[in-house]
């Protein structure tokens, strides 16, 4: 038994899952002492709905990060697409068509990112910082900086506010579906191996016949698409949109991935890890709200957790060096 635990701990991913589950259990116990509401299904519904959009983004962000890249434009793209879809709906474009157009535009923005990074060989941080800033600016153009409220077809709001069996929000089911599909693709096809190979050593991957460039463009396009999807979800949930919404979502999504064990250098981590990362961050924030911890302290605590997660990820190589 002892050997088994030790072996599991030597596995990077399993160790991650165990640490995160441990943190989650501790939080569930600790915060429920503060307030009984914390562990109720209602609170879960609340958290799941609130973090569905970032969760979606974290799913595709995991893939981008696995190849060793990063995408900072997701929050802006999400907000931009929500505005776009809302504007189209207010102009009486049928809801499905408005959604499709917005998603296509989002994917196109992602493609643009991918093209500049993979073909023009520009730095991902710089490219996506550029698109992040540009599309955030465009968000303010729609209503001259004001919010967008009320859509003609109110049936559209049902998705963002509905729940399955009264517990699981539809939007969170979407998150689970995306994670399951991506997880399956990672494990059952060569997709997972390919992107981890690219993240670990792009040169060796290219020399093995892996289409590095196509993968990168594809993943950025997908990330744009998912950001657009998150925009639709948030528009439906909030029944409107504000130009500043989604500011900082990119860092929250990246935090979830990092916490879940995705390495910032690429090549390491799993979809399951990222998923647990979402749950942990969601419950942590909810717990801090319930305990009336001030927003300023919340940031500080979150920052400390990011640093700790990086340290935990680095422990293994340090130990290995010592062994040598």
């Amino acid at each position: 038994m002892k050997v088994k635990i030790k072996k599991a701990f030597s596995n990077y991913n399993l160790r991650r899952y165990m640490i995160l589950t441990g943190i989650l259990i501790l939080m569930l116990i600790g915060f429920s002492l503060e307030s009984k509401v914390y562990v109720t299904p209602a609170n879960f519904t609340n958290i799941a709905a609130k973090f569905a959009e970032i969760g979606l983004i974290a799913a595709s962000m995991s893939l981008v990060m696995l190849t060793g890249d990063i995408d900072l434009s997701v929050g802006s793209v999400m907000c931009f697409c929500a505005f776009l879809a809302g504007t189209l709906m207010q102009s009486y474009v049928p809801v499905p068509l408005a959604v499709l157009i917005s998603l296509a535009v989002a994917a196109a923005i992602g493609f643009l990112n991918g093209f500049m990074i993979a073909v023009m060989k520009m730095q991902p941080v710089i490219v996506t910082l550029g698109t992040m800033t540009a599309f955030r600016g465009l968000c303010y153009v729609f209503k001259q900086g004001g919010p967008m409220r009320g859509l003609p077809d109110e049936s559209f709001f049902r998705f963002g506010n509905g729940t399955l069996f009264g517990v699981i929000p539809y939007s969170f089911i979407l998150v689970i579906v995306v994670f399951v599909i991506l997880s399956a693709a990672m494990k059952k096809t060569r997709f997972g191996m390919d992107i981890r190979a690219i993240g670990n050593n792009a040169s060796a991957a290219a020399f093995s016949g892996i289409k590095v460039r196509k993968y990168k463009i594809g993943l950025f396009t997908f990330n744009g698409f998912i950001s657009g999807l998150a925009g639709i979800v948030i528009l439906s949930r909030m029944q409107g949109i504000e130009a500043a919404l989604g500011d900082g979502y990119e860092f929250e999504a990246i935090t979830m991935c990092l916490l879940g064990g995705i390495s910032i250098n690429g090549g390491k981590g799993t979809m399951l890890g990222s998923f647990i990362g979402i749950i942990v961050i969601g419950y942590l924030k909810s717990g801090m709200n319930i305990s009336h911890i001030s927003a300023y302290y919340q940031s500080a605590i979150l920052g400390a957790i990011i640093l700790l997660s990086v340290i935990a990820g680095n422990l293994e190589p340090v130990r290995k060096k010592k062994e040598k």
Partner: protein
Amino acid sequence: MRRRLDWPGKKGEGTLAEYILQMKDIDKTFPGATVLNHAGLDVRQGEIMGLIGENGAGKSTLLKILTGLYTRTSGTILFKGREVTYASIEESADDGIAFMHQELNIFPNMTVTENIFLDRKDYVGKFGMIQKKRMEEDARKVLETLGVEIDVNRMGSELSIHEQQMVEIAKAMSMNAELIIMDEPTAALPENEVEIFFQFIRKLNRRGITIIYVSHKMVEIEAICDRVTILRNGTVVDVVNVGETTVEQMVNKMVGRQLDEYYVHTPTKNDGVLLRVSDFNGENFEQVSFELMKSEVLGIYGLAGSGTLELAETLFGYRKPTRGGVTLNGQAIKKTDIPNMVKNGIAYVPLNRKKDGFVRDMSVFENISMVGCGSYRKGIFVDWAKNRDICDKYMEALSIKAVSRDTHVNLLSGGNQQKVVLSKWLSIHPKVLILNEPTRGVDVGAKAEIYNLIDRLVKTEELGILLISSEAPEVLGMTDRVMIMHKGRICATLKTEGLQQERLLKLASGGKEEQSEERQEIT
């Protein structure tokens, strides 16, 4: 200025003071391999000492031990009569030993002055400010004493290779170097600048600077060196005076005559053309045409920088050819990118194994199945169980020593890593296998296994192998025919049987073929 000892006219044993450097009984063992075995290097004050040896003979290891990049397993080093052990290249530089690497360390975005005084602390004035004016003046002075006219405010990126070398030497001189090690200094230099460079070396030498000159090019060794130390398999075979020894004698000593049983390859029947390359042009090579037969091992022999690397990478689709094409089994390959080449059955074991060959933080299994896993499927999904069986099969067939197939490749020895790379390609049953220095950095045992494998493959698998190597014995022992490459062109294609090593080396270093004389005799 500096104490200049008289040039020792007499040969043979000198007194201790005559030697600026004495390395004695240097041993170096890496896990699994002995690189240096009682090697040594005695250099007299003020001479130009050549250092030659085949790849893997231990030249660079010896020099790295001298300059503190490696630690020695045993042995002593005396520099200027004092026993020394440097912990780093900075320490040896402070003591007066400068190392000019094959790749020049010029920073493109810094001025000549900054490049010369880059890591110096003596120009920091009050409040930590850099004394720029004084630095520039000193840079000008150093260049002047060297008789070099380079504006000290030019950027590193604007300098020609020759000028970059001058700046490197100026850097060494500014640190009061007494011994300069030059590792293949002419590798990147155009032919017409070599003589200018030599004149410069001689001038340096007259100023009392001792030089260790490492090169593959025998012509240069003969032209510039006073004495030559010959290394083979980590041991000093001989130290000879240039002028008393012919190039042929030196090459013979360098190459030796052992290890015949190593090379197991016996000629095979060539049944038809497999790969036809016609008028192939690309970066660093031109007008390359050849045919690779089925079941043939065709060698490409060339020294570093001769264009073999670029040719191989272009054939595999990593680089784009500027002209010419490739025909496989009579079918022209139109799309020249790696995925398409792989689809057509062309495989490539790259030169730089760590960078291009395998993914170090992934398992043996993932590395081996990286190319071929998609061919075994269950519906739309990959059949991983089947792939694991195939991985096990190759791990057994090539006797890859790893704890399990889930072990990360960076934990394996060089030889086993190379076998993983080979397995990755063999699992897709390639038609053409391009091997670029397949035994570089591989221990002796694994080397023999790889040779065995090459021979077995062409006899059982019906493929053709292109074996690119700069190790003459390997080429002679393992190929059916050999093409010799020099300066981006194929200068000869010869049958390996009966081919002499000296002739191979001579052709590869740009020597003229003596065939013309033979022909005259015949006619």
